[in-house]
Structure formats: C-alpha cells, structure tokens
C-alpha cells in the first residue's frame, strides 16, 4: 500500500487537496477568512489544469451558494467553502439546498460571527444553521478533515440520504496549523468517490422536472417529512461508508468518539479541536486514579442521541463544553445532551459550560477545573464560563 503519501499540511489545504482529488464538476465560492485558502488553492488547481472543474467566481456568498444549488440540481457534483458572516449571508439558501436534496459538500471553517469583528474560532457561525436540514460533522484535526471530505461526498450523494453536508473545522487552530497528514492516491480517491448519479437532473430535458414549485398547505408538510427521512438514514449509511474507507486508511471515526469513557465516572463532552487538550487531561487524571473520560461529538446533525445515551449511561457527572452560546437559552450542545440523556432511568447530572468565544484560548488547567467541579458536585442552573474575565478576578492571563 505504498501509494499513500505523507505530507505536512493544514486543515484548509487538506480540504483543498481532497477537492483536487475528487475533481468536482462545479465550485462556486466567495473567499472569507479563515476558509479563504480553500477556494484560493482550488482556483489555483483550476487555473493550472490540475482539475477539470468549472470554477465560478461570484460577487457574494449568497451568489456562491445559489450557484452551487443550481449546479447541483442540474446534476453536477458541487463543493464550496465559507466562514462566519459569509455563512450567515448564505442562510436563506441553505434550507432550499436541503429541500432540493442537493448533495453539496461544504467546507465550513468555524469563526465567530460579528459584531465585534473577530476572525478567530467559535461555533457561532455553524450553530445557527443546525435547523437548515444539512448534515453537520465537526472535525478535530486536518487528517480527519481530509477523510471526512471523502466520506461526505459519498454520504451526501447516497440515494438513501441525498442531503448536503457541512464539514466543520476550527478556524486557524485546525485550518491554519500544519500537521502530518496521510493522503490516499488520486486513483484510490477517484475509485472511492466514483461518479455522481443524479436522480432528477434539471438538464435531462427528455424527462423535464421543476424544483421547488409553489406548494401550499396541501403537501408542504409531507415534503418536509420526506426530507427528514434522508436525515434519519444518515448514521446507518455513514457506518457502511466509514467501514469501506477504513479499509483504505486504517482510520475509523464514529459519530461520537469515546476517549477512555467506557469505565469513566466523570466525562467532558466537547467538539472539534479543543478535544485534544481534554484527552490529555483525561490521561493525567487517569494516572492519579481518577476515572475521567471524554466524549467528542462529531456529528451534530443528525444528533446521535441513541449513541450518546449509551455512552453516557451510568456516569456520575457530565460537563458539556459549548463553543457557542444560545443567548437567552441553553447552549446548542448542552441542549442536545440534556435532551438525549433525559430518557435515561438513572439521572446523569449535566453542567453547561461556555468556552472559547471569539478564539479565547482553552487550557489544560481549564479542563482540570471542569473535572474538579464534577468530582466535587458543583452544579449551577446557569452556564459557567471558562476563561472569562470576571470582576475581581485574579486571573489576568487574557
């Protein structure tokens, strides 16, 4: 299996390299920090003849995603990328893409939503899109980004799923840091992703169809229910595809990664890049005989409720660390976790934490104090904030 190649690269460039190997039919994009490098690198591939894709430079993110939807329903394999306010400008079109069952694969490089303007990571851009009907997968590192892009093409286009995918990675932390990455050969990737077989391509003029026609109360509800079925099929189809890719890569990513959580008493639930620090702290605590563990939530849509309930069952305490807030409500991950654990016969206490907004650093000592809270049984009704400057705080590091 010497056709694999090891390189040093970043999350953005890993995404772009996967795009080169996939060679999608159409890419329409409007670059924005920190996802800029994805369309930038891909435009270079297109200009240098490394791909056969049609690269469409557009005048806004709204146009980018609109062009993607048009190309996708025409029958093309389509990819794009964006971040933060760019994602927000696309919002109107996301539910349309999902209803049209347009299997677009989207590199969402997480960045805080303005104002104030801030280019660093949190999940306030992707979380507002959680109800737009797209699959959301959150990656911890560049390798996972690369592998997930390949999987997402097959997942999105599978006839049982037909749903667009956000492949999320943390802005700068994952998107710009270089790390070793193993690439599959171009041939292996091409064989794995195959060709898109569109169900009702708009360009098939022998079998004309229209998309999204006016539908009032008589069928709108049924169409939405039919759409939900695609999402319901995601996790079983994903399991098949992930097992197939594992044969090539030797890597398998479950919907929720369990890190020493099997026999743990106390667990932290977290997403994306900050999971690494938590895993280190779990190792340290284990050395001291404390049964700590971590659950890294990879799929946020569909939310793996059953998997989570099975993994968190019987724990003495769970801390949910959200990298975005729902101002006036429960933070997105905490709300899902509480809801999934509610049906367990034995109550698992859950504490909500908000961390890392606008790129605020998250340290090992923060994870230590969260585990300390759980062990001492310190629970509050309202969320706790990690690394926030409080009045009379002796912590001056920010």
């Amino acid at each position, binding site marked *: 299996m010497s056709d694999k190649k090891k390189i040093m690269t970043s999350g953005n460039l890993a995404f772009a390299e996967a795009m080169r190997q996939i060679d999608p039919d159409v890419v329409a994009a409007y670059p924005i920090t920190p996802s800029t490098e994805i369309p930038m690198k891909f435009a270079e591939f297109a200009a240098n003849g490394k791909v056969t894709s049609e690269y469409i430079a557009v005048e806004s993110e709204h146009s980018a995603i609109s062009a993607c939807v048009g190309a996708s329903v025409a029958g093309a394999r389509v990819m794009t990328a964006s971040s933060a306010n760019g994602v927000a400008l696309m919002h109107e079109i996301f539910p349309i893409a999902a209803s049209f*069952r347009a299997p677009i694969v989207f590199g969402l490089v997480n960045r805080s939503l303005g104002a104030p303007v801030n280019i660093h990571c949190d999940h306030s851009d992707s979380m507002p899109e959680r109800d737009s009907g797209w699959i959301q997968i959150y990656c911890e590192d560049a390798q996972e980004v690369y592998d997930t892009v390949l999987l997402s093409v097959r997942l999105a286009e599978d006839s049982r799923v037909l749903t667009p995918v956000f492949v999320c990675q943390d802005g700068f932390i994952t998107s710009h840091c270089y790390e070793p990455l193993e690439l599959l050969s171009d041939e292996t990737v091409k064989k794995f992703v195959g060709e898109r077989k569109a169900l009702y391509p708009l360009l098939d003029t022998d079998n004309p169809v229209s998309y999204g026609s006016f539908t009032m109360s008589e069928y709108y509800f049924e169409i939405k229910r039919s759409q939900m079925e695609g999402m319901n099929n995601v996790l079983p189809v994903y399991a098949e595809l992930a097992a197939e890719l594992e044969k090539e890569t030797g890597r398998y990513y479950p919907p929720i990664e369990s890190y020493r959580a099997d026999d743990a008493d106390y667990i932290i639930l977290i997403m994306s890049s900050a999971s690494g620090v938590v895993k280190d702290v779990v190792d340290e605590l284990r050395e001291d005989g404390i049964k700590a563990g971590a659950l890294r939530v990879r799929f946020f849509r569909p939310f793996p409720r059953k998997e989570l309930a099975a993994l968190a069952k019987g724990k003495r305490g769970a801390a949910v660390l959200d990298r975005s807030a729902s101002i006036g409500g429960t933070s997105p991950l905490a709300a899902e976790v509480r809801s999934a654990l509610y049906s367990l016969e034995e109550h698992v206490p859950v504490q909500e934490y908000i961390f890392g907004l606008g790129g605020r650093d998250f340290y090992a000592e923060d994870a230590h104090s969260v585990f300390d809270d759980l062990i001492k049984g310190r629970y509050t009704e309202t969320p706790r904030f990690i690394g926030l400057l409080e009045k009379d705080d002796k912590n001056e590091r920010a």
Partner: protein
Amino acid sequence: MSKPQCWQEVPLATVAFGASALKVQTGLWRSSRPVIDTEKCISCYKCWLQCPDDSIATDDEGKVAGINLFFCKGCGICAKVCPADAIAIYPESEFSEEDREGGKTGADPGEVGAHVG
C-alpha cells in the same frame, strides 16, 4: 399520475414531473372575475401578453375569445391594460355557486397541488 396520499408518496426533492404548470388551478385563488366584451375587443393581444397566467383564451381564428377560469386568479391586469375598455372586473360573489365552480370557459376539474406527483 395519481395524487400522493401520504408523505411516503410525495416525490423526492420537491420535484414536479413534467415541469409544467398546466395542471395547477391558480383559478382557486380568484376573488374578482374579468369578463370580456367580445364586441368591444379589437384582439390586440395586450391582455394575452400581460396576463401572468395562461388565462386569456383564443379561438380557432386566433382572436381573443374569453377567460380561462381554471387559471385566472383575478389580478385585474388584463382590464388595466386593455385599450378598448373591453374587460370589466366583477366580484366573484356576483356569480352563481355553479358558475363559481368552473366558469363557462374554464370547466376543467381543478387539481389542488397537481404539480406534486
């Protein structure tokens, strides 16, 4: 194609087969009805051009002959653009129940959401 009876039967992806609006009874929205005085009409086709639906009916000689009430939604544009003052708009309530169902020139049975399925 028979109409879907449950969510499992609606076509995927909001697709409407045939890509045609010819079976969609936009006439169900109508609360005012245009009536053409064919004596006054000079068959200039202005109403035919401006009508947002396929409602202006023509005869075998290509003359404007009436309104297809299966499609006509009563927007009144035709009356506004007519240079011969040949179209008058009446409230739908002035017509008999039977007449309201289909109308003289639009007797096709309606299909709500005909484009689904």
